[in-house]
């Protein structure tokens, strides 16, 4: 009893018989093994390794170098920023209105007592015009602290009874004041 597979195979026509014959496996004759030289390859790999290691080392070194440089520059930046702040502070100190005011007064400048305005569009002058006068200046500068009462006590006033029974002490004072006024007035004129 033949299986259906055998029947099927027997029914397939044998095609390309020559090709099939050629494709059949045959034993390859043993040839001499060609071995590539190992030394150049080992050298090549070692070189790559060496280059890699050296490169990595150099990269690391340059990173370190950059870190040092950055540190130095950062320090310099900090110190320059501090210097700038100090200079700004000095500038601010020079721009202190009190200092400017005192300097202006030393130069003989005075504050105006009145102001005039020239209106560009109409050509009109408004406001009052007057000369700035010396002697109207503000008192600037540090105040001398007042002397404490303990060091500078009030004067002790002793009322001495008048020898002239007709003139009271207040009347005498008033007369004295008038006399003083008169003399000072005379001096002024």
């Amino acid at each position, binding site marked *: 009893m033949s299986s259906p597979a055998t029947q099927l195979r027997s029914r397939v026509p044998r095609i390309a018989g020559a090709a099939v014959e050629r494709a059949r496996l045959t034993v390859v004759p043993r040839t001499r093994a060609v071995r590539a030289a190992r030394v150049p390859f080992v050298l090549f790999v070692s070189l790559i390794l060496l280059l890699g290691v050296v490169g990595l080392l150099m990269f690391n070194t340059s*990173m*370190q170098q*950059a*870190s*040092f440089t*950055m*540190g130095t520059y950062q320090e310099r930046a*900090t*110190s320059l*920023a*501090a*210097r700038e*702040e*100090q200079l*700004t*502070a000095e500038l*601010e*100190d020079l*721009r*202190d*209105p*009190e200092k400017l*005011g005192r300097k202006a007064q030393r130069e003989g400048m005075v*504050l*105006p*007592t*009145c*102001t*005039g*305005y020239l*209106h560009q569009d109409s050509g009109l002058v*408004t*406001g*009052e015009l*007057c000369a700035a006068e010396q002697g109207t200046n*503000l*008192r*600037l500068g540090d*105040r001398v602290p007042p002397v404490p009462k303990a060091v500078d006590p009030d004067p002790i006033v002793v009322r001495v009874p008048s020898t002239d029974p007709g003139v009271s002490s207040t009347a005498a004072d008033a007369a004295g004041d008038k006399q003083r006024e008169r003399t000072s007035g005379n001096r002024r004129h």
Partner: protein
Amino acid sequence: MSRDRQPAPGRGSLRGSPQVRLRIGFILIAMVLSAFGARLVQLQGLDPNGYAAMAAAEGLTEVVLPAERGDILDRNGEPLADSVDGAMVVADPSLTTEKAPALAKFLATRLDVDYFTILPRLREKGSRYEYIARQIPAAQATAVVEAAKEEDFDGLWTERDPVRQYPADDVAANLIGFLGTPDPTKGEQPLAGMELAFDKILSGTDGEATYQRGAGNKIPLGDNTTVPAVDGQDITTTIDRDLQWYTQRVLRQTVESAGGSSGYAIVMDSRTGELLTVADYPTFNANKPADSPRSNRISRALSDPYEPGSVGKVLSIGALLDTGRVGPRLRMTVPGQLQRQDRPIGDWFDHGTIRLTLAGVLAKSSNIGTVLATDQFEDGELRSYLERFGLGAKTGIGVLGETGGILPGPGAWTSQAEDRISFGQSVSVNAVQMAAAVNTIANGGVRVDPEMVKGSATMADGTVVGTDTTTKERVISERAADQMARMMERVIDPDAGVAPGAAVPGYRVAGKTGTAQRVGDECACYDGSTTVSFAGFAPADDPQFTVYVVVQQPRKGSGGGSVAGPAFAKIMGYALRQYGVAPTGAAPSTLPVEW
């Protein structure tokens, strides 16, 4: 077979049965494993982050990145307070003792320190940390320490020590306040004024940098994290530094010449309510606060309540005009003395029965005339007006320790009290409050909140202040304000009024003098001393500035017109000049003062 395996009875008694041994062995192993397990739970379960952090911290350096404190600026951006990166020089006496005299000499020549002060510090036994100099510019400190190293002095180093500078010394010092010496651990120590009130805004938040360090340098590829510092914000005030300085000097001269104990001067922008100047005398140098007594380091203009006197007539007569019951030309017969329920009321000048208009009552500053006129108020009417003028309530401009003044409550508001309140006694105010009240007249009857901070800022207690929060409220009608302004112009008139010294040449000025009885500090009663003041605005027909000058306890015989008037004229003149306000050129008020 089983008989063979039976252990010898002698050996068994020594080792015990294998099952027992096995059990003991297992128990021991279980105990050890349990201990391992418990430790594992402890490490991984209970506090894994702590250990991870400890591991990470190994070899890491942490530095604080200090936040810079915000500046306090004037309205033009000029600094009133600014921060400079400062440093302190610190010494380790265990290293400096040996060369102490030479090092002390070296430091004394290069830093502003005293040889005899630092010498014992350089030799301090048992100490390894002594301050040599504090709060000096960082650049200088570093230079000195480096120079010392070159000279072979060891044991010196610098540490951060921020410097707060007040470039204009005493200008606005009472408002700005000051900082104490910084604490090495807690940092800046705000002690007074805006520095204290707005510390949260000014101080900022310190940052932090963590990085791995090797041989004194940052390891480039190591772990590093940086939390940048958030610098403090600047605060811009409405103060004009130059005007504030000028006002302070004029005020000082005025108070000193009048022999007064203290004084305040306020300059306010009439339209916006911005305070250009809040001057106090006596004041202090903010760079050297310890040189001045504590009482001089507060802003008296806001913390001293006082009775305003006749300047208060501006408010009461202004309110009366608003009711429409009277006009500036109201004819009044003013007797020499007015008998009222509890005591007679007199005027500052002796007179018999005179005939004054309402404008004349204000121009001559007649108490009797004011009392007679304000009799026309209905019950509670004057109080309600004064409340709306801002009396009795804090201005809330952002100064700590402000007084709200005292406006008697409805229960204490008797007719006698109303008489006195109508001419500015029996009621107390602070200077900024009063300036804002008078400014209501300048601003056409609309009261505008005074403000000192531009934009908005939150104080330590959560209150938001600043020009963004300004509110406006109409108190009297525009017509009443205009009438009042024209009446106030007559005060400056050399013939009609009492304060010709307050005139600013070329300008129409409206103002009012005040000479008030003052409550003495010791007896808490009217002790014979006075408070003299002048409040006004210019140009009278288009007000730009309101200026208020007050002098406390001047020499006897001083009056608001003679003492505060000229100071007002100087300050107002300067403000008008500086801001280029040209005279309006309109004819001045000619309201009759007598009939």
